[in-house]
């Protein structure tokens, strides 16, 4: 299994990144830190999907004179462009919710907020 993982090192790295993000989401009390953990998880999944498209020795999939195959798979890149926009949107909404929570409760620490409730 280790040998197989060695070949898929990029995928394994994204799993590690995913777990780092998950760790932050679970353990951090500060809502912004919690959400940054989620952003790290998102980055991990995006990195994984982009890595699927990699071809050994491939070039960017932009045609024109003087470029030759192999090309890198364009589909994951197009998907992740969408994914990044989705992540940006979620972040914007989460931050505005945090701003509101701060204004109403005067804190954004989850443990203090539980007391406020």
């Amino acid at each position, binding site marked *: *299994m280790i040998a197989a993982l060695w*070949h898929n090192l990029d995928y*394994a790295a994204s799993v590690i990144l995913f*777990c780092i993000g998950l*760790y932050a989401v679970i353990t951090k009390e500060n809502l912004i830190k919690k959400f940054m953990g989620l952003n790290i998880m998102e980055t991990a999944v995006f990195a994984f999907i982009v890595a699927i498209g990699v*071809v050994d020795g491939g070039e960017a999939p*932009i045609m024109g004179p003087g470029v030759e195959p192999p090309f890198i798979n*364009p589909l994951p890149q197009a998907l992740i462009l969408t994914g990044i926009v989705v992540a940006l949107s979620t972040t914007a*909404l989460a*931050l505005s919710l945090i701003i509101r929570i701060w204004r109403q409760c005067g804190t954004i620490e989850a443990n203090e907020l539980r007391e406020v409730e």
Partner: protein
Amino acid sequence: MMRRALVIFVLVAVAIPLMLAMAELPRHGSPDAPPQTHVAPYYLEHGPEEAGAENIVTAVILNYRGLDTQGEVTVIFTAMAAVVAVLVAGGAGVPADRAAAPATTPVSLIVRFIVRVLAPFIVLFSVYVILNGHVTPGGGFQGGTILGALLIALTLIMSESDARALLPQRPERLLQAAAPLTFFAVGMIGLLLTGDYLAYPHSGPTIWIATLMLTVVEIGIGIGGAMVVATIFRTMGADR
């Protein structure tokens, strides 16, 4: 201690199955893996002439998976509507001592000068990125973000009222919806011309119409994206 053990257990329980799955996936970078042999070769082979874009990523975004992109611009519009709906007319119940944050951060003369000097060049660059998306890396989103970043930078160095004057007032809400609206308009034109929603007449004597439609979509995404990003930033910064 108990809590830490639980966290470690959760992380291990997530990591091990994922690692096992990753180990058995087709080898990273292999040209024979299914993603490299099934759909993508079609894009690479037919993209330039079918979709009229040398940048295949752009071809996929605007042509083959156009509905995804229409959904995507709607997602970012949703985020803007959500931020405005959440933050507008708020402000009630602010604890007095916490609300006393400074209203504006003082900006140094150097920053102000540099932003003003660079502004026209940033606009030029963003227009270039938007219009050249089909031959170079870039496109509506990337260019729109650059333009949006410029709007944010200008908002930071200006007073509240000057920053407001930066964006057109009356058609503001129309411009915020520019990206989904141009997608709909172009999609309907495609429906009229070819009989399919979001199709472009890529062959025959009307090929210039397809090019025009693609350019309009890119500009729409660019303007809409910039407006949405700037609006989100301004709404968050407003009425402290």
